[in-house]
């Protein structure tokens, strides 16, 4: 386990952007028997989600969120030393997206820019990376952009994934701080579960071919191609049950954190069934577990900052335990300070 502690850096601001297009799960009658739709919605907790137009990307959503964050907080663009962009759907294979965003945002060429890639655990990892850089001499402010457009990966005939995924882009400003708060991160990975969530084709291992663009039918009747996301829901649930509650408990018990005294528990918005399971298993008060998935679905890596932006903009923020988990398999847990964090209103794009 990688346990990392940061003192002297914190989150100063968060903003989020979602596309305007809405897809309602009540309209999935073509895929799920009508009598099961309501049960499915109640179980996964997702009423509707947002999806981008064909020509909009995760970086476009992040760009809007970043612009809003910079304007709302009067940030001098010259004070941003590093831009990190995390997504599994960057604009291009080459070049990386972070330098494009540096230019679009009008940041100076003295700004370092770097892409990161992870799925639903991504925000916890990327926030740790941002804090690591911000802790270094020579870097003060880090602009962390985390966005995903899973709607571009999901086949409409996929019974597992079509009801779940939505699109979003977020921006988080990490800066030096003198509150003395010690942020703690536990980061984990288990590549033995690489097949649990996967897009098999389209990269180096299996380049896109005419053959792997053809759709096939899965055991449950879902139709998808190897260039689209596949998820084994039961394997993922087994993984979440095994590792997430235990990892949260370990982080708290080994760092003298009294869990029920922590201000909020912000979980990756996988689906309500799973997040409820985790919250109950660790006996954390459900009223302090915010949910945004009813409106935005599972947005993968941006779901934690999106939930803070959507559900906690008016809340009194103190500290939070956050946890992201998913494809890899990969997961992370962190105890972070939100008391200095200014949350912007969500933008519709």
């Amino acid at each position, binding site marked *: 386990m990688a346990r990392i502690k940061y003192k002297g850096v914190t989150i100063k601001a968060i903003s989020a952007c979602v596309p305007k297009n809405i897809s309602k799960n009540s309209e999935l009658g073509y895929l799920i028997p009508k009598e*099961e739709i309501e*049960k*499915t919605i109640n*179980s*996964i907790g997702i009423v509707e989600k947002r999806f981008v137009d064909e020509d909009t990307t995760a970086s476009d959503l992040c760009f809007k969120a970043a612009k809003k964050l910079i304007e709302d907080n009067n940030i001098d663009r010259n004070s941003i030393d590093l831009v990190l962009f995390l997504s599994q759907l960057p604009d291009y294979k080459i070049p990386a997206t972070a330098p494009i965003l540096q230019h679009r945002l009008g940041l100076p060429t003295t700004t370092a820019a770097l892409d990161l890639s992870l799925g639903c655990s991504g925000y916890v990892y990327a926030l740790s990376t941002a804090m690591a850089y911000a802790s270094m001499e020579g870097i003060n402010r880090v602009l962390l952009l985390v966005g995903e457009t899973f709607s571009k990966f999901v086949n409409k005939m996929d019974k*597992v994934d079509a009801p779940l995924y939505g699109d979003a882009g977020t921006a988080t400003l990490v800066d030096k701080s003198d509150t003395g708060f010690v942020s703690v991160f536990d980061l984990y990975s288990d590549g033995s579960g690489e097949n649990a969530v996967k897009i098999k084709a389209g990269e180096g291992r299996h380049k896109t071919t005419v053959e792997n663009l053809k759709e096939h039918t899965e055991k*449950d009747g879902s139709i998808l191609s190897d260039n689209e996301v596949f998820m*084994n*829901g*039961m*394997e993922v*649930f*087994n993984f979440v*049950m*095994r590792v997430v509650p235990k990892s949260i408990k370990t982080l708290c018990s080994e760092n003298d954190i009294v869990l029920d005294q922590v201000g909020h528990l912000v979980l990756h918005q996988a689906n309500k*069934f799973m997040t409820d*399971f985790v919250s*109950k*298993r660790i006996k954390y008060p459900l009223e302090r577990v915010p949910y945004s998935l009813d409106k935005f679905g599972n947005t993968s890596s941006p779901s934690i900052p999106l939930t803070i932006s959507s559900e906690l903009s008016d809340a009194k923020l103190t500290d939070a335990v956050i946890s992201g988990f998913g494809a890899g398999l990969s997961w992370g847990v962190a105890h972070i300070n939100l008391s200095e964090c200014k949350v912007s209103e969500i933008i519709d794009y």
Partner: protein
Amino acid sequence: MDEKQFIQYFAEQFDETDASQLTLDTKFRDIDEWSSVIALSVMAMCAEEYDVILSANEMENANRISDVYNIVKAKTNK
């Protein structure tokens, strides 16, 4: 492990199926309202009530309630 109690917990994962309709011999996949969501609920029930984590394979290969019962029983006896 109490069989009746296990069947009761199993039945609670359904909306329209009562415990009185189920026995350890019931092929649960034949129940009309069986779905992948109920499969996840059964996995969650085993974790919550018995502290037993079922693997995806174990759940997928089980057909009768007794199959799940026996896995849970074996794991709780460890």
